[in-house]
């Protein structure tokens, strides 16, 4: 189908964008990559009075990588972040997760920040932000505010971004030395949203025993489910962890729902299996960093 009519705005500066968004209030929608908004419009599941296309706003496409992490601007496309060597070096989980987001052609337009604001519980990037304890920077006529991931995702397809606010960037923190990450998921077809998926981050101590282990699970709740599994994993080297116990612990932590794609039980089972795979890979990546 075709989108319903709306007033189209294409601000040329950030100030102009914030003006239009303030004026539009709840009837306004930001258009970034359009890879989620336009399907919703085409299916007539959304009918905003005004669409504020931020694609021409200068200065929003930055990818700044440094020792503390990666700041991704609102217009940085999935593909650009995926390809950025600086981003991959500072936070390897970004590239690991982005390869699982849709197809390369969708990633050429879709933005990382758009994915966060869209807050699909099956999406990868919200889980990455939640796992790393990152934050989203929101701008409005009242100024800027930085919202931590734990408060940013408020429900399925709901984020803390208010009418009149533009998410200008997101920050993905780096991990301490001797850390590794991984993302594993199962989807019905390549490029589909995941039936279940797990992002993991593991940090090793001086004796290469697991000193911190966290997972973030997608598609098993209204928002990404973050769990600290350090107590079940450590302080032991990865080779002597009781992985069955870890899978059981993760299964107990999630409360998935069944739908046409998978039953709740199957999702729970998958989440346990994927958590172990992701944690083991993250631990070997942390080892790799050591050598």
């Amino acid at each position, binding site marked *: 189908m075709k989108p319903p009519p709306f007033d189209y705005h294409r601000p040329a500066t950030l100030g102009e964008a914030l003006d239009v968004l303030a004026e539009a209030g709840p009837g306004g929608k930001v258009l970034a990559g359009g890879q989620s908004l336009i399907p919703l419009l085409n299916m007539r599941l959304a009918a905003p009075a005004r669409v504020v*296309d931020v694609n021409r706003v200068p200065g929003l496409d930055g990818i700044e990588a440094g020792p503390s992490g990666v700041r991704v601007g609102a217009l940085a496309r999935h593909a650009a972040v995926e390809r950025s060597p600086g981003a991959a070096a500072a936070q390897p989980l970004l590239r690991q997760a982005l390869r699982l987001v849709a197809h390369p052609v969708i990633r*050429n337009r879709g933005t990382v920040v758009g994915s966060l604001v869209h807050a699909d519980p099956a999406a990868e990037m919200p889980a990455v932000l939640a796992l790393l304890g990152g934050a989203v920077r929101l701008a409005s006529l009242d100024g800027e505010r930085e919202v931590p991931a734990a408060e940013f995702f408020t429900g399925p397809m709901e984020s803390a971004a208010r009418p009149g606010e533009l998410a200008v960037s997101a920050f993905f923190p780096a991990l301490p030395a001797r850390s590794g990450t991984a993302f594993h998921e199962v989807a019905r077809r390549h*490029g589909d949203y995941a039936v279940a998926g797990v992002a993991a981050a593991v940090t090793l101590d001086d004796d290469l025993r697991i000193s911190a282990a966290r997972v973030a699970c997608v598609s098993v709740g209204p928002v990404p489910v973050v769990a600290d599994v350090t107590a079940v994993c450590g302080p032991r080297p990865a080779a002597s962890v009781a992985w069955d116990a870890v899978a059981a612990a993760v299964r107990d932590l999630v409360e998935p729902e069944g739908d046409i794609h998978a039953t709740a039980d199957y999702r729970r089972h998958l989440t346990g299996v994927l958590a172990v795979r992701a944690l083991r890979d993250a631990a070997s990546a942390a080892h790799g960093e050591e050598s």
Partner: protein
Amino acid sequence: MNETHHRVTLTVNGVVREATVPGRRLLSDCLRHDLGLTGTHVGCEHGVCGACTVLLDGEPVRSCLTFAVTVDGQEITTVEGLAQGGALSPVQRAFTECHALQCGFCTPGFLCTVTAFLRDNPAPSEEEALEAVAGNLCRCTGYQNILKAVHRAAEIQAAEIQAAELQAEEGGA
């Protein structure tokens, strides 16, 4: 409702084209209805099938998930722009040779996707070729011949580049 229209200028297949469209006009519809370029096909209009894939400043994108106004001033290549001087492009020839199309509905999207892919990765592995076309659906071929065509196109392209280099050398000598 009296919709506001916007004037857009697109360079399509090297030709500057103008259209007056409402904000909600999809690039796919702008190409097909406003500019009469019906080579770009529309299957699903929600990003899943890939039939509408065109090149935007050289990069493949879904034209059904792009508004024409958003890309005002940019360059678009559609399937109509792939042949050079009346001769089918290496990717088009490979699709013909390998029987990589039957009804042809999905073909424009595959051709645009594969053209950009082989430009960036002229000698892909099996795995990479598979990943490259995984975002395009085909209801006829069963994909095997499409994959063969990707590799065949890479061969044709490499041979052409080599021939061109040889000719340049001979010309220089």
